[in-house]
């Protein structure tokens, strides 16, 4: 672990804290020994290949799934219909809504089922997209339906908003518009957001925190800035097969050789010897390197470290 990072994150209240969390389905483990911590107030991107366990992780955080192993706490409590559940809003990937309900009835459902419902916020989100209140949900476009789902989520005034690939089926224009709705809502109410997405560019724009999982375990977690600063992209002349000697003392996440040129993403542990051109990697480069190299050691920043004592309590 890099010693560059300070420990300030650990003092913040965690919105989600998972320790040794695992879920086994009939086909095997979807998520295994997953430990991380998401401090409150962050906009966190959840990244990973398809089938990495992202939806499973979210399902356990919102009490749709029961963990097979380990624990997950939301604001210090086991997810359930009580306090933790009241403070959490979840938007599933398929964005389920009652298709025969009108938009107004959908918001009424939010009002009827949630104490502390904020009708004004919900209506504003719907109105700002010119979605007619009397229209049936089944007749809306994908973007409008997502907007209604957002309104339903923000109307609950959640402290934690969990979104499973909310923009996956939308065109770039609508995606941009709804991202703005999401960011404005989160900023206005100080909502912690955990959002899975495959759109790396979107994540780079809006997220200040990252959680990367692959093959059912955590690969990287922490503040985007810190994760970026502790990586260096090195380019130099290749000397043959494998990783060059002078890089061996550093953590090499991924190295690729093309012709006589070698490119390596490393977590430098002290100054790098040899003649290398060092660049700051983009978030996309770091993410891709971790997703492509399942053997690279995981990187968990201190603020994202789960405390076993808290999790076990």
């Amino acid at each position, binding site marked *: 672990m890099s010693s560059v990072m300070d420990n300030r994150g650990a003092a913040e209240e965690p919105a989600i804290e998972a320790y040794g969390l695992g879920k086994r389905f009939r086909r095997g483990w979807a998520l295994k020994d997953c430990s991380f911590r998401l401090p409150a107030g962050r906009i966190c991107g959840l990244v990973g290949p398809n089938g990495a366990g992202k939806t499973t992780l979210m399902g356990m955080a919102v009490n749709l799934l029961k963990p097979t192993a380990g624990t997950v706490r939301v604001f210090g409590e086991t997810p359930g*219909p009580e306090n933790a559940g009241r403070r959490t809003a979840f938007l599933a990937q398929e964005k*389920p*809504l009652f298709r025969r309900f009108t938009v107004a009835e959908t918001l009424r*459902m939010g009002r009827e089922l949630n104490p502390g419902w904020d009708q004004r916020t919900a209506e504003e989100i719907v109105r700002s997209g010119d979605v007619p209140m009397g229209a049936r949900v089944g007749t809306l476009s994908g973007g409008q339906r997502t907007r209604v789902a957002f309104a339903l989520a923000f109307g609950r005034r959640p402290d934690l908003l969990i979104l499973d690939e909310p923009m996956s089926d939308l065109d770039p224009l609508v995606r941009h518009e709804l991202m703005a709705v999401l960011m404005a809502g989160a900023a206005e109410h100080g909502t912690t957001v955990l959002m899975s997405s495959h759109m790396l560019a979107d994540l780079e724009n809006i997220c200040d925190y990252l959680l990367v999982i692959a093959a059912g375990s955590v690969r990287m977690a922490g503040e985007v800035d810190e994760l970026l600063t502790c990586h260096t992209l090195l380019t130099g002349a290749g000397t043959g097969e494998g990783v060059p000697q002078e890089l061996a003392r550093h953590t090499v996440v991924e190295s690729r050789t093309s012709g006589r040129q070698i490119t390596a993403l490393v977590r430098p542990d002290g100054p790098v010897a040899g003649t290398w051109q060092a660049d700051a990697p983009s978030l996309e480069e770091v993410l891709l390197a971790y997703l492509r190299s399942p053997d690279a050691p995981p990187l968990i920043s201190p603020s994202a470290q789960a405390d076993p004592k808290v999790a076990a309590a």
Partner: protein
Amino acid sequence: MTTTTPTSAPPAASGASLTSRRIPRLSGLTWLVWRQHRAAFWTGLAVTVAALAWFAYQRASMMAYLERTGWPESKSWALQNGFQEYSSRLGDTSSLVGLLVPVLVGVFLGAPLIANDLEQGTGKLVTSQAVSRGRWLTTKVGMAVAVVTLCTTALSAAYGWWLEPVAEADKELYWVAGSATGPVPVALTLLTMVGGVAIGMVLRRTLLSMAVTFGFAVTVQVLWAANWLRLGDARTVTTHDGVGEGAFPKLPEAAYDLDQSYLTGSGDLIGWGSCAEQTEQATNACLEKKDVVGWSVEYLPQSELPAVLWTGSAIMLALTAAFAVFVFWWGRKRLY
């Protein structure tokens, strides 16, 4: 069921807000469940009201006919051909109430009740609001059970009222039509519906669960039809006057004969067809040889019908409760 729409208020009511305060309004989960299933619930209520009106009309026309024949002083109407029309209408209606209603309710209300939410993901939507899974299931199943109980109780009571004046006219009417009265339609419908809910919960596909529930509903009907008379406390009457013409024992009015056999001198029972020979002479020789001394007839007296209906309904309601327990257990443990 509570009144749901403010539209049922008199038009003279002053102001919408005043009206809505006077009329009890559904709220919370009850509102959601009513809104989601309102088509099915309103259909059930409307069909029930229409059926009640039709039953009343049929009863009135039947009574008019009976009065023309001198009822209740003269009992001759029972045998007249003219009554055939009325008794067959009663018989047909008994299968509508006892057979069609349970199957339709099971297939169109029970099976999709939860399965559709699981298929469309709306179950996830509701349980990720501030609503627990147990409360959601209880409200859904509870409201469906309440509406179904209300409708089938009304249907059964109204049908019983239509049948009552002529129930004892003959055993067909009394037993076959009588099987759709009292608690039986309610119990059959609840069993089929809650069974359908359980099937839908396990299969999680609307159309598939509707098909499987149809099979389940038909099985319930077949088992009920084959076994319900066995629930009675059967009586046996024996005679010792031979088995010739006129020797068959006279059963009490509207009694249902379950089984009849020949009684032999040694007290054994043999099938009443065991001496079906070509000629009367051969038959008599056979009866002589087998020492047939009379008839033994097993029957259910008229007074047994209520006991049969209530015992059967109690069994079906116990099964319904078992299905309901399964639904809640599965919902807690295995829903997602």
